[in-house]
């Protein structure tokens, strides 16, 4: 052992540049993606904020914007009068209060804009529920088959193929629904509107199936093999084992799969924009056109006046979508993490 001061000892801490750099680069990348999500979150809510805090200033801004856009156009008669006209109704009608938002009509452009988001919420729910109703049974049964019944070789073919469906761009699914599915379904069922919630829901099921399938499949294969062996050794058939032993043990995982599918369908834009007809109707008839929250943002955001009430309401809808999908994903995560694990610890 060297004991003299000043001498280097092999146990002295060394500075390793590559280690230092790689650690900090990874850290920076990880935190920046985290920061981006937070910033988007903040931005969406900030833009939607005027709905919660309606101010006098807001009305002035829109008046100013409108006067700039329309009032000073050459050839317009009596600009001052039209300005007065705007300012006279703007505070009473063109303010997005909660009262305004809960209306049954969505007519954001017009003499008297109406910002009732109810038909949009109904539209989103209709398409989402239909997508889950069509997609979930198929996905869950396929997962049961590939996890519990299929021979290994077959499983290795089925699983990647269904998961491949998840990588389909939604515009392709939407296009397929718009061009082919809608016509076929109308010929079969003979309803009057070619594009409607039913077509949208069915097309959306194609987007939901791979998610529900994958998560369910994982939940089922995570059930230890000794569990199904115990059941088979008692003289249970394969199907009884799947239904009464494996499925109950995997329920939290299957529930999480459904939630994730719901979240996917709720936030999906392109498929519904193309396949549902986009009429904001407050009806529960599945064969009538609908407009979803996401499709509304997709269709209208590009044409809206920056900073005005319509713009704010669209951001409010966006924030609501954000909250719903975030909550659903969080619940799903919670379920898989805690409930599924608890079952095997005997709590």
């Amino acid at each position, binding site marked *: 052992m060297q004991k003299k001061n000043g001498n280097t000892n092999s146990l002295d801490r060394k500075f390793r540049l590559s280690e230092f750099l790689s650690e900090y680069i990874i850290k920076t990348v990880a935190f920046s993606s985290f920061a981006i999500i937070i910033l988007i979150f903040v931005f969406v809510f900030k833009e939607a904020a005027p709905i919660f805090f309606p101010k006098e200033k807001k009305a002035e801004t829109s008046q100013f914007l409108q006067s700039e856009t329309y009032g000073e156009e050459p050839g317009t008669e009596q600009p001052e009068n039209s300005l007065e006209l705007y300012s006279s109704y703007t505070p009473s009608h063109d303010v997005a209060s909660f009262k305004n938002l809960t209306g049954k009509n969505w007519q954001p452009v017009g003499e008297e804009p109406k910002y009732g988001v109810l038909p949009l919420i109904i539209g989103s729910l209709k398409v989402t529920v239909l997508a889950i109703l069509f997609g979930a049974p198929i996905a869950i049964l396929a997962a049961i088959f590939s996890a519990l019944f299929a021979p290994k070789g077959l499983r290795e073919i089925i699983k990647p193929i269904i998961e491949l469906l998840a990588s389909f761009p939604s515009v392709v699914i939407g296009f397929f629904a718009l061009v082919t599915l809608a016509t076929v379904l109308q010929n079969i069922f003979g309803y009057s509107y070619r594009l409607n919630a039913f077509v949208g829901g069915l097309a959306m099921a194609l987007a939901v199936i791979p998610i529900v399938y994958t998560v369910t499949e994982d939940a089922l294969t995570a059930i230890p093999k000794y*569990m199904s062996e*115990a059941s088979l050794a008692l*003289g249970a058939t394969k199907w009884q084992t799947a239904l009464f032993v494996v499925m109950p043990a995997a329920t939290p995982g299957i529930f999480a799969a459904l939630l994730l599918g719901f979240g996917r369908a709720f936030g999906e834009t392109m498929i519904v924009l193309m396949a549902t007809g986009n009429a904001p109707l407050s009806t529960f008839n599945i064969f009538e056109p609908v407009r979803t929250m996401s499709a509304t943002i997709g269709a209208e955001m590009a044409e809206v006046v920056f900073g005005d009430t319509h713009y704010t309401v669209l951001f409010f809808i966006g924030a609501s979508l954000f909250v719903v999908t975030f909550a659903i994903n969080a619940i799903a995560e919670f379920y898989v993490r805690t409930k599924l694990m608890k*079952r*095997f610890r005997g709590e």
Partner: protein
Amino acid sequence: MRMDLQTEIIVENLNLYYGKKKALNNVSLSIPENKVTALIGPSGCGKSTFLRTLNRMNDLIEGVKIEGTVLFDDRNIYDNSVDVVELRKRIGMIFQKSNPFPKSIYENVAFGPKINGVSNKSQLDEIVEQSLIRSALWDEVKDDLNKSGLALSGGQQQRLCIARALAVNPEVLLMDEPASALDPISTTKIEDLIYELKKKYTIIIVTHNMQQAARVSDFTAFFYMGDLIEFTDTRKMFTAPDLKQTEDYIRGRFG
């Protein structure tokens, strides 16, 4: 072997392959009724594999090929006409790792009768109570049958698994090292239980523990490298085995 014994299972020229690897080599063996037969041998000798051929649990493993016959109730259980589900009802199995379902104690025991179509509540209650009594667990759990089976101790879980197997009223019980993961007190309880159970059931037990084989079994089969080396009366096996190889193993010289 004494002639007054009834045979429960007759195994003839059994060969088993995992893919290309041969795991059992021409095994022939007659298992006597209402006796405990112990299967001993070093790890990987094929004793657990042999046990699992008796209720066709090896069917679940891909790439397993089986030749030869296993006669049970005058039928070759590997014949195409035999229903595996019915076979497993009559030949129950207890695993090395206790594997109760994540359900209540009651539901664990009632599972077998339920899938066999027993739905009458009082009849189920009766079966559950009788099975738990026979597996010597009743006194410990009778007040909280609704508790999760997984909340029991290791030894209790294993007895719960035995109760679950008894509830379908099998004729044969296959036990794959049932006490290897348990503490000595729990092991004693399981051994006492085996002693009680053999009055009604034929028991075949795989064990790593020589003393356990000597204590609980009437007959012992010694396996080595997929061969059945010697099969005889347990007392004779542990005092004066016919073969030197058996003696060496029992004395702990290898394995």
